[in-house]
């Protein structure tokens, strides 16, 4: 929303010593976000009104024009790229020495004489944004230069859409085009205002701030000035037209006021009105439309004017649309209605979408003689829903959806009648003032104590100060000792203020957040409960990154149907978004692998090896999660945290072992008790003979495997891929294996190495199991080499083991060791058909 500083000053007497920038700063600190200030006419030195005399194509460039322009005392040759430049046009001409922003961006740059494509150019014909007037004259197309022809009243204002604008009565200048030529631009446009740009989002809870008067009320409080009372005169009713209003749904329309005025002539607005609208970027259309717009920008109350001759029987009906009904709005677009939408109509037809936009057929035309002003209040939620459904947001809907004060409607109607009489002296009210009202504002009073403020803020404010702030904001206060009864003003009572805490905010924001000294809270020493899962995540990350050289990625939680298909999985198993951002990735991940494989694909060029991992939540509809509400039985889907690591090795035929190494290291460090299971629980996309489940005790908690060659091909990967998956949520809940120290033994150990050759189908795990209880002297067995190929028969492999013998009570003698070692060899021969190599 744009706020004119001059307009504000109509309501608050601010001395010249207070600048718009200071006002903006205070508003920012206490009320709303001010995104910027545009000081009109700033940096407009050496920019004048120029008149295009000739305009031809640039001989060396298709998109440029070679113009001659009159700037009063001389003619300049200028190259211009504007899409709309033409002969006779009045333009904003920046002479050499002027400062402009190229294409409205970056720093101001001082113009110098230059040559463009070989032809000299002595200045620049400017777009509005290049000279800081973008707020006043919004750009419609990026190459559009500012057409000033409207200032002499013979052309339409910029962007006028077939409007009935008959002219802008320029201030203090005769309306002859040539008298403007050469004038400084700031003077020609009467620029003496500053425009505050306010972020609409920061106003979402403040229906009272959607007009200049509301902002002025805040400014008056912030600068401790008096706010001028908003005075309007009562409307004198008459009976020439029997205006009637029937409101069918008083919930959606708590108040509807209307009055008919005849004797109007649709004309250009007076200069002050045009200038006021122009300052805040509103194009002037005609006096009637301008009055309704002006009142909206002034007070925040949207209004509408109907041509009375188009309303059957002078009876307005406020009702819901029928499903499937169509309606053509003022902009010429056909809108599809449904029965949730509130309409303004008469007995026969629709006239407007309530609170959002008028219809094409009932609008004001040049020939309109009698009008009906609408000043109404509509329910916020309904306006917002309708506006969202229709994709139609207007200045009017933006205000109604904030919950406007119904009392504003009466003031606005009175003001509208005053203004129409000012613009058209023949105009007169020809009906009674219809007021269909059924609303009830919760104005309190709220009970609050002085102590409550202290308790919430942490600073003791003087009672006097609190009362002063609240009263200045319009609250009415009755005190009894340190207890207050606070009546909420109507403009704050629709939703913004309803509990004592709201009053605390009012006081503290005006008092000044900067005056509250920060202090740290005091607590009893109470060690926080540990988040074991988060600690485990961090430990795993440390090992993976620092010990195993894996790189951590963060991926989206969404996957595509194509990814699921590549994985040879079934999309029906996946939870799905109702409204995905891209149709491409509507599914919620069940597993971190799909996106990790995409990471591998995207990074594999030029790398022989890629080690990636992610820790994150997955979504599985079949698993039970937390309750949706504490007292409801239905559950969210399970969302366990998984660790998934992938390893792509282009020059390795069995990266399974790299993945297995990850498991072994994690098991040795942060996941004691994690081991490969004897069986493979199986799974989608796995290499059938290089896959195994991971377990802690009896519980399967993950898997380690190579990806199925078909899946590798589907994902377009250049090498074998191994995968480790561990469900950390599950692991963290399992009892930790008791790790104990064993006493050091000082008697010497005896070491023996043994290489055997066995058939390939013999498992290391079975060998270990067979040797585990052979003899207590055997302290450890470790596999240190496995070899297949030359020197070992086909179908055979060589396995080399390292044996450590020790007696924990005395020194061993060789014979004892030989005896056990031979026993081992015997077991290996008999059970596994091993041959000692």
């Amino acid at each position, binding site marked *: 929303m744009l706020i004119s500083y001059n307009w504000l000053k109509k309501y608050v007497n601010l001395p010249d010593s207070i600048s718009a920038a200071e006002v903006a700063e205070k508003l920012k600190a206490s009320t709303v976000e001010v995104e910027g200030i545009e000081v009109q006419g700033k940096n407009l030195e050496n920019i004048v009104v120029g008149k295009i005399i000739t305009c031809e194509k640039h001989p060396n460039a298709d998109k440029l024009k070679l113009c001659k322009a009159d700037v009063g005392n001389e003619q300049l040759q200028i190259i211009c790229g504007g899409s709309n430049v033409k002969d006779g046009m009045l333009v904003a001409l920046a002479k050499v020495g002027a400062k402009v922003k190229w294409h409205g961006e970056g720093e101001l740059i001082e113009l110098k004489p230059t040559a463009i494509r070989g032809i000299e150019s002595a200045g620049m014909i400017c777009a509005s944004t290049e000279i800081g007037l973008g707020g006043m004259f919004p750009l419609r197309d990026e190459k559009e230069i500012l057409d000033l022809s409207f200032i002499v009243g013979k052309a339409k204002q910029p962007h006028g859409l077939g409007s009935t604008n008959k002219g802008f009565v320029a201030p203090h200048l005769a309306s002859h085009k040539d008298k403007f030529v050469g004038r400084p631009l700031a003077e020609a446009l009467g620029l003496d205002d500053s425009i505050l740009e306010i972020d609409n989002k920061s106003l979402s809870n403040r229906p009272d701030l959607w007009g200049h008067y509301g902002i002025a009320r805040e400014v008056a409080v912030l600068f401790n000035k008096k706010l001028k009372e908003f005075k309007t005169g009562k409307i004198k009713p008459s009976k020439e037209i029997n205006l009637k209003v029937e409101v069918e749904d008083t919930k959606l329309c708590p108040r509807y006021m209307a009055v008919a005025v005849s004797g109007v002539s649709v004309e250009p607005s007076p200069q002050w009105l045009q200038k006021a609208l122009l300052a805040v970027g509103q194009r002037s259309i005609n006096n009637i439309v301008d009055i309704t717009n002006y009142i909206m920008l002034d007070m925040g109350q949207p209004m509408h004017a109907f041509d009375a001759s188009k309303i059957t029987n002078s009876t307005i009906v406020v009702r819901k649309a029928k499903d499937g009904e169509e309606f053509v709005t003022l902009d010429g677009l056909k809108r599809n209605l449904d029965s949730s939408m509130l309409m303004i109509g008469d007995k026969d037809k629709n006239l407007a979408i309530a609170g959002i936009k008028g219809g094409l057929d009932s609008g004001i035309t040049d020939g309109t003689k009698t009008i009906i002003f609408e000043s109404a209040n509509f329910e916020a939620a309904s306006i917002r829903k309708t506006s969202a459904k229709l994709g139609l947001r207007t200045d009017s809907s933006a205000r109604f959806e904030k919950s406007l004060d119904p009392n504003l409607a009466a003031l606005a109607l009175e003001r509208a009648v005053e203004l129409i009489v000012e613009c058209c002296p023949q105009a007169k009210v020809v009906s009674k003032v219809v007021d269909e009202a059924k609303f009830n504002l919760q104005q309190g009073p709220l009970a609050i104590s002085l102590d409550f403020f202290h308790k919430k803020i942490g600073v003791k404010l003087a009672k006097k100060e609190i009362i002063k702030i609240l009263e200045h904001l319009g609250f009415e206060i009755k005190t009894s000792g340190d207890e207050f009864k606070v009546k909420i003003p109507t403009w704050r009572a629709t939703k913004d203020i309803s509990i004592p805490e709201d009053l605390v905010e009012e006081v503290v924001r005006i008092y000044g957040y900067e005056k509250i000294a920060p202090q740290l809270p005091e607590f009893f020493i109470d060690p926080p409960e540990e988040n074991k899962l988060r600690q485990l995540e961090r430990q795993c*990350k440390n090992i993976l990154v*620092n010990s195993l050289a894996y790189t951590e990625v963060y991926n989206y939680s969404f996957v595509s149907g194509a990814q699921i298909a590549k994985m040879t999985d079934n999309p029906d198993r996946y939870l799905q978004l109702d409204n995905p951002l891209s149709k491409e990735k509507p599914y919620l991940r069940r597993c971190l692998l799909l996106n990790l494989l995409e990471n591998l694909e995207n990074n594999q060029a030029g790398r022989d*090896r890629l080690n990636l991992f992610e820790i994150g939540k997955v979504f599985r509809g079949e698993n039970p999660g937390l309750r949706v509400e504490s007292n409801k039985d239905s559950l969210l889907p399970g969302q366990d945290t998984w660790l998934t690591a992938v390893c792509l090795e282009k020059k390795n035929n069995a990266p399974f072992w790299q993945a297995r190494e990850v498991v072994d290291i994690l098991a040795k460090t942060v996941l004691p008790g994690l081991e490969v299971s004897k069986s493979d629980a199986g799974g989608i996309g796995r290499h059938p003979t290089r896959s195994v489940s991971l377990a802690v005790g009896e519980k399967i908690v993950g898997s380690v495997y190579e990806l199925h060659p078909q899946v590798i091909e589907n994902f377009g990967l250049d090498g074998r891929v191994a995968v480790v998956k561990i469900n950390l949520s599950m692991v963290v809940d399992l009892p930790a294996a008791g790790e104990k120290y064993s006493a050091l033994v000082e008697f010497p150990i005896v070491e023996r190495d043994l290489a055997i050759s066995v058939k390939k189908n013999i498992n290391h795990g079975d060998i270990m199991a067979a040797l585990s209880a052979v003899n207590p002297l055997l302290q450890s067995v470790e596999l240190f080499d496995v070899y297949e190929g030359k020197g070992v028969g086909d179908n055979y492999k060589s396995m080399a083991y390292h044996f450590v013998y020790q007696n924990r009570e005395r020194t061993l003698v060789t014979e004892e060791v030989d005896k056990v070692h031979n026993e081992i060899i015997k077991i290996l021969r008999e059970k596994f058909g091993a041959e000692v190599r």
Partner: protein
Amino acid sequence: MQSKFAQLKTEALLALQSIKDKMQLEELEIKLLGRSGGELTNLLKGLKDLSDDARKETGRLANEVKKEIEDALAAKKKELSAAGLNEMLEKERVDITQPALPKKAIGHFHPNTLIQDDLEDFFTSMGFMVLDGPELESDFYNFTALNIPETHPARDMQDTFYIKGNADWVMRTHTTSVQVRAMQKYGAPLRAIVPGKCYRNESTDPRHEHTFYQLDGVVIDKKINFSHMKGVFQAVADHLFGKDTKIRLMPKYYPFVEPGVRGEVTCFICAGKGCRVCKNSGWLEAMPGGMIHPNVLRAGGIDPNEYQGFAFGFGLTRMVMLKYGIEDVRLLESGNMKFLEQF
């Protein structure tokens, strides 16, 4: 005989002076002291032919000469070996500018992890629990319990991801969704932070992401007030941006707090002077927060007449971008190794 010893000593010491390396030294040693044919050895052998008296006197001299020669040889040996070691060490000189080879692969943490871990540790040191909750959350915990009414724009389809077939399941739009769960589980007093992944239905561009990370915090006790919130904001700002960081609070509306504020910190890049990052304002938007709305406390089963508190939240993703000067937010979830390898 005595003169022969004296002469040998003179000759030997002279010869020793011209010795240049260990080989010559060894030769000289053999020439003088060799068991068979060593000049001194031969002289010593001659001692036995002398008379008792002469042998006694000459013997003493002979021992002196022998010791002197041996000492001189030993000294020379030491001198030569020191010189040799230095020469050898010089030959072993390495190119200290060269990196260790072969290069060892190292892994990388995601930058968000680095910032998040740091903040988790910081808040833990102040006695906060670190919590998380479901990312696919019920409409109740994400909205209703937080005093966000049915008609609030945040619930629009264009702002929130909904789940097909379950109208009241959403992808959480903030980690504030854990607030009421935490109140219900732990009651008051409560100190907790909730870092985590959030989702908004928003088209992506260099400054917008549909997936981002947030850190939410909550402090509830009997006497927790607005000035405490400001104190914690200041502590966080000091920790993140340095001790001289200033903060300022401005009003901002969130349905789940009252009063609600947005906190800004002086730009750590230009120290408040104004630069491109802070758009010349000298300030960076950092932390929204506010005093917890009584309706939210009630939803969490906490009596707002007995307890009060504040909540705050800030974008971890935004902190990561600010800290490392990342200009395109989409890089964070790109899985691009060229990006990740920098951390």
